């Protein structure tokens, strides 16, 4: 008889060991999958995990790792604060879209004027856009007790339709020969979020991601507010005695995660992506939820988890290109990696015992 016993404190050893074990297990299971598809498993695994970091063109890929991981980390850092407090914002995708629309809206309204004030104004608008979108579930939750999980998720679809409407209507590039999509902000110097140091992939969004990691770390682990947030998540009733006002807590958590998601959207649309199109949101908001949990809701963990997710995307493309591995195999492989990471996490918080439970 196998049974689980909750650890009083999470195991330090397993905190470090489980992700490593999970990645190794994924390599074995993924290797079997790749072998079944007639590919050399060792080569495929190397392409995904090794080559982007240390392979022949690694200097380029390392920068791209930051480009891909930046928005994931930025969003996940904000989400984790809420998740710790038991505030479930799963609508970051919608907040990401609204941040992008608001920020790009400022740029498109100002076009073609050049001014150093435009980009800061866009950043502000992006954060506000995401914040405002997140305040809808926050207000409904605080006022009526409506589930923020469900409202924030519904708001994603509303945002997606609004994005399509913008791309085909008001924000369509008047010089785009009738094709959907806005002007490319990369070609509008005042609005462009450029690579700060050539070849490194660093842009303002990546900088913001690092700031968010540090900021949320200080907030959650070095500040009394973080203590209150964690108490609210672990013991909601006790939190009231500790002076936590539920409504304010909800507004703070949703507002923060919404603003960060909005910023991520703004930096993406003004930088690497460049354009508002109907498919510009590539699911970052949802992937960030996975990143937040993979990082165990800890800022440092999120940083590493974001980089790992980005690595599988970049390595996955490389494996497709070099080995003709189908994109579907990469997707299944990513799914496996997540399963193993999430499943193995059990060992951090529980002890596995053999034999009968003591009465």
């Amino acid at each position: 008889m196998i049974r689980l016993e909750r650890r009083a404190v999470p195991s330090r050893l397993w905190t470090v060991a489980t992700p490593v074990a999970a990645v190794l297990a994924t390599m074995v299971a993924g290797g079997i999958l790749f072998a079944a598809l007639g590919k050399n498993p060792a080569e495929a695994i190397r392409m995904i995990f090794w080559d982007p970091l240390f392979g022949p063109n690694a200097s380029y890929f390392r920068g791209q790792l930051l480009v891909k991981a930046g928005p994931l980390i930025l969003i996940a850092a904000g989400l984790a604060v809420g998740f710790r407090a038991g505030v479930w914002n799963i609508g970051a995708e919608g907040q990401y879209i609204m941040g992008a629309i608001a920020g790009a809206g400022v740029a498109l309204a100002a076009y073609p004027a050049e001014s150093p004030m435009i980009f800061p104004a866009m950043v502000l608008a992006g954060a506000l856009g995401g914040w405002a979108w997140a305040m809808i579930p926050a207000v409904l939750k605080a006022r009526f007790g409506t589930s923020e999980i469900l409202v924030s998720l519904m708001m994603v679809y509303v945002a997606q339709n609004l994005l399509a409407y913008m791309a085909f209507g008001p924000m369509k590039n008047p010089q785009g020969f009738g094709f959907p999509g806005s002007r490319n902000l990369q070609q509008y110097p005042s609005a462009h979020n450029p690579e700060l140091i050539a070849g490194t992939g660093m842009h303002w969004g990546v900088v913001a991601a690092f700031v968010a990691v540090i900021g949320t770390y200080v907030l959650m682990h070095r500040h009394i507010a973080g203590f209150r947030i964690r108490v609210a998540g672990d013991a909601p009733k006790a939190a009231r005695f500790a002076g936590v006002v539920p409504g304010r807590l909800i507004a703070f958590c949703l507002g923060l995660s919404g603003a960060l998601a909005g910023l991520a959207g703004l930096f993406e649309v003004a930088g690497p992506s460049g354009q508002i199109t109907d498919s510009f949101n590539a699911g970052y908001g949802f992937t960030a939820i996975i990143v937040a949990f993979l990082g165990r809701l800890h800022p440092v963990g999120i940083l590493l988890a974001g980089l790992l997710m980005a690595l599988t995307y970049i390595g996955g493309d490389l494996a497709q290109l070099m080995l003709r591995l189908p994109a579907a195999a990469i997707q299944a492989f990513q799914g496996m990696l997540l399963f193993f990471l999430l499943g193995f996490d059990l060992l951090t918080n529980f002890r596995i015992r053999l034999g009968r439970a003591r009465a």
Partner: protein
Amino acid sequence: MMIAGIDIAQLVAMLMVASTPILLAATGELVAEKAGVLNLGVEGMMIMGAIGGFAGAVVTGSPALGFAAGAMAGAGMALLFAFLTQVLLSNQVATGLALTLFGLGLSALLGQSYQGIKPPATEKLTFGPLTDLPVLGPVLFNHDWVVYLSLALVAGVGLFLSRSRAGLILRAVGESHDAAHALGYPVVAVRVAALAFGGALAGLGGAYLSLVRVPQWAEGMTAGAGWIALAIVVFASWKPGRVLIGAYLFGGVTVLQLRLQAAGFAIPVQLLSMAPYLITIAVLVIISARHRRGAQVAPASLGRVFHASR
């Protein structure tokens, strides 16, 4: 019955067929959520049902066996989710998202040899002269058996949850797993069973897409239907009868906007497409405001991890 040149009976018949996949998936998800588990992997289970059902029907030559295979594929995915969340106690939101990713990938791999094939046809049931009745004929007596099955399942789930002892236990588990456990009910077993049932229905819905609605296999063919199913459960405030209304509303808005376009009306498609989600939010607000001081509408243990410490 005609309004603005549109035959309403025909429109209703169309939206019934259009809504069947999301109705099936939403009914299944409702059972899982009633047991207290939030499975966001509906899209992944549906697409596995789509390829499982398609492959099953092509290999055996029988659509019925295909649907059975689709249900099994969906249930298999659900059991994977159940193992992770119920045995390994992983987070349900993250696991559900991973399940969708995995399902989309795996289905595409399995489907590679089924591209460009036509499946055996699922015939409409014949009701003789009833089919020719005005209004009622096209609405009630001119569908394939899966449409009727989906309606029967909604009714069956409704009765099961409200009238049967097993249904009562399932709801108890969803409301308070600790209390249910203290009363001696097998919380994990109930949840695994509810998840498997939900997965089977999602698989059935997916198979309906690949065997009847399209009918062909193509990668990513569910195109977000699983996410709509999740919205419908919320819209329905976890009541089976309202799932039917929700599915017909969500399916209906798509059908209606396309129908209006065909009739020559210029309509803002994207703005109209937001409507069901906004209505869902409004419904949520109304019911939560009404239940503020009373019983919660959502199962109280929804999405929470259960670990029996004793």
